[in-house]
């Protein structure tokens, strides 16, 4: 059988063993907030912790990225992807990713891989192996993954850990890369018995009953479309600071802006991209100076329309995974669930 059993005690050993063979990224307490960072020992890892502030998206779509170098006089450009050693370096293992974040990253995969192939994203993405950790109940009060059908991803990860009995985990591979990891460290795993598999099935069934739905997404896109002029948008627009924090912490927000930096020789330079937010004033302005969403209210509303109408319609996946980060990190205490419900409730 390909699945294995691992005890809680052995998990740090697994992490340390992987550090020898891979670049291992896990949630740590860097900067006093849960942060995904490259680690050099399992001691740094926060096991059983809340979600990292920024999801795994930052590993494949970093906050700031060099795209290419250019020369204004010769017109020569050189991609930073070719120059970097991203492709040849060791594989990255991301340890302990929650199901909602795997689902969230599947949305980005869809957008950057399938719809419009972005070489920068894909080169980084293909280098990563993801070890998920199953949630058996909502991880905190802001989580609403069940509403967004995001806590049981079928793809987007290589291994998944599920605690089937106290301090005992079953580790199930989902890809060849996952199987390879299991084969690398045979001493750390045991063979699961039939009884263990029964426990696994029972655990997954119990899991289903531990989550409840906060909002119903069936029919939400057309309902929101009908409520385009709802007064609720105005109410929340007045509370919002337009700081953009919600978009940066969102695992499915991917917008970026592109800028050139000129060197002091005035000839060469570098083009970079940087996360941007639809909550910012010039986000929707185009060449010639027209701004499609100048008014704050339109900008406030747009994020919801994109998450709850455009992404589901265009890609056939939910645009929000219910991770609750935008609620946790909003200085103005705006709750995405309340906004959706208030808009819906408006006549």
């Amino acid at each position, binding site marked *: 059988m390909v699945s294995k059993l691992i005890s809680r005690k052995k998990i740090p050993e697994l992490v340390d063993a992987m550090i020898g063979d891979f670049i291992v990224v896990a949630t740590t307490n*860097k900067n*006093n907030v849960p942060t995904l960072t490259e680690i050099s020992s399992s001691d740094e890892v926060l096991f059983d912790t809340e979600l990292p502030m920024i999801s795994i998206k930052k590993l494949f779509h970093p906050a700031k990225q060099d795209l290419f170098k250019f020369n204004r006089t010769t017109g020569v450009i050189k991609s930073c992807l070719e120059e970097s050693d991203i492709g040849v370096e060791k594989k990255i293992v991301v340890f302990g990713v929650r199901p909602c974040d795997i689902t969230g990253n599947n949305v980005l995969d869809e957008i950057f891989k399938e719809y419009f192939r972005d070489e920068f994203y894909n080169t980084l993405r293909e280098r990563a192996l993801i070890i998920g950790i199953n949630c058996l109940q909502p991880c905190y009060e802001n989580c609403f993954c069940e509403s967004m059908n995001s806590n049981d991803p079928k793809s987007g990860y290589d291994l998944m850990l599920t605690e089937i009995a106290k301090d005992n985990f079953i580790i199930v591979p989902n890809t060849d890369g996952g199987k390879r990891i299991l084969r690398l460290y045979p001493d750390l795993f045991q063979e699961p018995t039939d009884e263990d598999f029964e426990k696994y099935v029972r655990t997954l069934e119990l899991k289903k009953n531990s989550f409840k739905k906060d909002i119903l997404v069936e029919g939400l896109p057309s309902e929101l479309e009908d409520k385009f002029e709802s007064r609720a948008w105005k109410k929340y627009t007045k509370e919002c*600071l337009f*700081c*953009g924090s919600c978009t940066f912490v969102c695992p499915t927000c991917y917008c970026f802006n592109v800028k050139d930096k000129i060197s002091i020789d005035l000839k060469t330079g570098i083009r970079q991209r940087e*996360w941007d937010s639809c909550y910012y004033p010039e986000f929707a302005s185009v060449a010639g100076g027209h701004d499609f969403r100048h008014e704050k209210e339109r900008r406030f509303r747009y994020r919801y329309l994109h998450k709850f109408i455009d992404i589901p319609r265009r890609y056939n996946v939910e645009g929000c995974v219910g991770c609750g980060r935008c609620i946790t990190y909003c*200085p*103005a205490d705006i709750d995405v669930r309340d906004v959706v419900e208030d808009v819906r409730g408006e006549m």
Partner: protein
Amino acid sequence: MSKPKIGIVGFTGCAGCQLSILDLEDELLDLLSLVDIIDFRMAMSGNKKGPYDILFVEGSIVNTKQEEELKELRTKAKVLVAIGSCACFGGVQAIRNYRNDRVIREAQYGKDADKFPVIKVKPINKVVDVDHYILECPVNKYEFLDFVKYFLIGGKPKLPNLPVCHQCKAKENRCIFLEDNIICMGPIIQAGCDALCPSYGLPCDGCRGSTLEAAYQQQVDLMVKKGASVSDVTRFLLKYNGEDPQVKEFLFKAWMEHDKNLKYGEDDKE
């Protein structure tokens, strides 16, 4: 094209902006190969009073003599750029505009207070036309350099028009406003400093001035909700931006309601 002639002058301020420019150690020699610095009293002798292709002005205007001097300089400069909080928004000394300046002057000069007539502290755009603003206290030396580079290739860098939170989140800082109830102006202040203060666990005091659409009312309501008093908040807002029109408008409204003793100062003569 011959090398553009540049001047860097200072009015009332701490001279920190000029010092920041000198602090461009790695780039200074390259810079000198691109431009002729003809007037930079802080750094050199043999200064010429124009004409300038670009004149960088530090500091705010606090008396009528300075007003005349600045107007005169404007006639000699093709492009005039305000650098730093004082020149852009009044700076720390603009706090005086909201206090009794006679008391302040007497504390400093005693009986001689009358020998130093002042006017309300003015950012330089209250006196002359300003072509561009380079923010921060002291001025961001890299943005200064960018301006020179863009000027030389025939453009002008864009102000970010994003809040400090943008870079703060990108750097994955702990949000001290949210988590530690420390009042932080990040959400309404112009980005560009790479969220310098919050990256060291300190609140953003707003030295880069407000974003174009800063939500002052919401921000202040939240700061008060987090336990700050209205006077804490006003002091905080006043620190650098006393003459920022958005701050002024907001403070007037807030004071009208909360504290009738506070008032906007008077000029000796105008």
